[in-house]
């Protein structure tokens, strides 16, 4: 089963890239895509784990993750559009009227 490890590493790297991207990029859409990258990292991890144990539950889980990611994509983009309409910008920093 050691061949699962590289996939896990890759998943972790993807997750990390998404994480860092989410934290550093200002554009709402890119931030959102970064969460998608994080989800894909998880997906990869799940598949790697399935590989490790030799069963399909991980892949099944992965399919559900894809669905959820799609749902969130739909919802997320709708929200981004809404926000863009209000402010005319995709800069995340412009949404900080409430604080404290």
């Amino acid at each position: 089963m050691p061949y699962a490890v590289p996939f896990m590493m890759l998943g972790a790297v993807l997750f990390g890239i998404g994480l860092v991207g989410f934290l550093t990029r200002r554009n709402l859409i890119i931030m959102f895509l970064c969460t998608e990258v994080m989800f894909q990292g998880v997906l990869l991890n799940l598949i790697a784990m399935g590989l490790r144990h030799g069963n399909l539950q991980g892949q099944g889980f992965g399919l559900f993750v894809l669905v959820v990611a799609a749902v969130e994509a739909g919802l997320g983009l709708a929200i981004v559009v809404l926000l863009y309409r209000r402010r005319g910008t995709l800069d995340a920093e412009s949404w900080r009227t409430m604080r404290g």
Partner: protein
Amino acid sequence: MSVHPMISMLAPELVLIVAASLLLIVGHSRRAFVLDSLPALTLIALGVALWLAIGRPGGGIRSTHSLQIDALVYYARWITLCVGVLIVLVNRHVPAARERGEYFALMLFSLAGISLVAVADDMILLFLALELVSVPTYVLIGLSRTDVRAQEATGKYFFLGAFAAAFMLYGFSFLYGIGGTTTLFGSSAAERSLAQLLVDQPALRSDPLTMVGLMLVLAGIAFKLAAVPLHYYVADVYHGAASPVAGMLGFVPKFAGILALVRVASVIDWQWTPATFWLLWAMAVATMFVGNTLALMQTNAKRMLAYSSVAHSGYMLVALLAGPGLASTAIDAPTRNGVTAALFYMAIYGLMNLGAFAALAYIRSPESDEPVDDLEDLAGASQRHPAACLALAVCVLSLMGIPPMAGFLGKLYVFSAAIAAADSTPHPAAMIWLVVIGVGNSAIAAAYYLRIIATCYLRPALGPGVATRCDALRAGLAICAIGVVGFFAFPNVLSREAGRAGQVCAAARSERTIGQTAARRTTARESPAASALPRE
């Protein structure tokens, strides 16, 4: 008439989901009377679900097809549905007629999600249920107000929610990875399940993968609970949402989070390693402290209640850290059983928090004719709205934990469970300190709760009283207030059920730990379950 067991097992949730779908369709009608009847339809759906949920967990069925139906599920359903009715009442006036169908549909989805969290015996289902709870709430916030703040709140909540969900999911993937199964408990010892695995191979408990997975899942749950360090969004989101939705947000994700936490902790049999124990301990302390000190600084009523909701999560974490105890030593009383205490607290918290937000929605600022936002808007409100302010005061005092409000009993259960657990955890002094910090925090909390009451009662009235005209809102507020007092006088109704639910965890725990220990004497020696018991 025979139905598929899954349908009968999930009947209440199915009713909610079907009704929600129906609402989505009917909501597009142009006829006013149809639109006006939508809230009633929602209530009917909840009522039917409640009717279906009545009963006791059957003797045989515990877990099949990735579902487990036990007392905890029943408790979750009852509380969700009952509070759900109140949430619907309080939200009756919020959506515009055109959006009503979607609005209540989303609400029903969210509520259905809560009981699904309790039902789930599978990581996938658990994750999906948690998402089912959260996703509709993102939208609800946006629907509740056209204000720019609502949009900002939606955006923040969504982005941070997705971010946290990724962590949780990542955690689940690790948990799957250690055993190669997504089943949490399984229907029998023979079935491969995570819980069984951890009992069979105690070494796995301290495996880094388990640890990381567990902690990431807990982090995701902490987001739902609004516990430190994932509490950041709370104030902004509550602030942006309309008060009725904020009231709902105090209950729905939090209850789901509690249920999920109970399930996950049951998987590892409430056996915390020292590191996890101290982490949870620190989390509980930090959650109480951060919530209360931040609330202390607020001048906005909704933000104040939002941060107070953080603090309340801290109290519930105290109870959960205390754990269910062992069935044989624990009487099933909430005062002994941390799970019971947390469940009881959660129900009461749902009531009192919703009541407080309902009052904020009911009372309107005399200047802007908007529902109360800033604390100043409440100035002298007691003379303009005596009954509403009384209800608000009752709810706030209950949040404060002053008798004779049910919140006091909640505190009683939580802290008493913590004290009782002191001897059964490896760190008795830590639990006692937790109690001391907890009660100290309720004193800090009193300072800002008191400001709400003081603003209502001790200030001269600013102008003529205007209130949100909605009988349902009024009824919801009244029921919350009466419930808060009523459950103080007659807590047994609730605590008995919470006790049954908490008992499940305790019983399951002893069954597994002790049963397995007896079965396999050889492994029992090294078993952390046995070694976690204090040295005799």
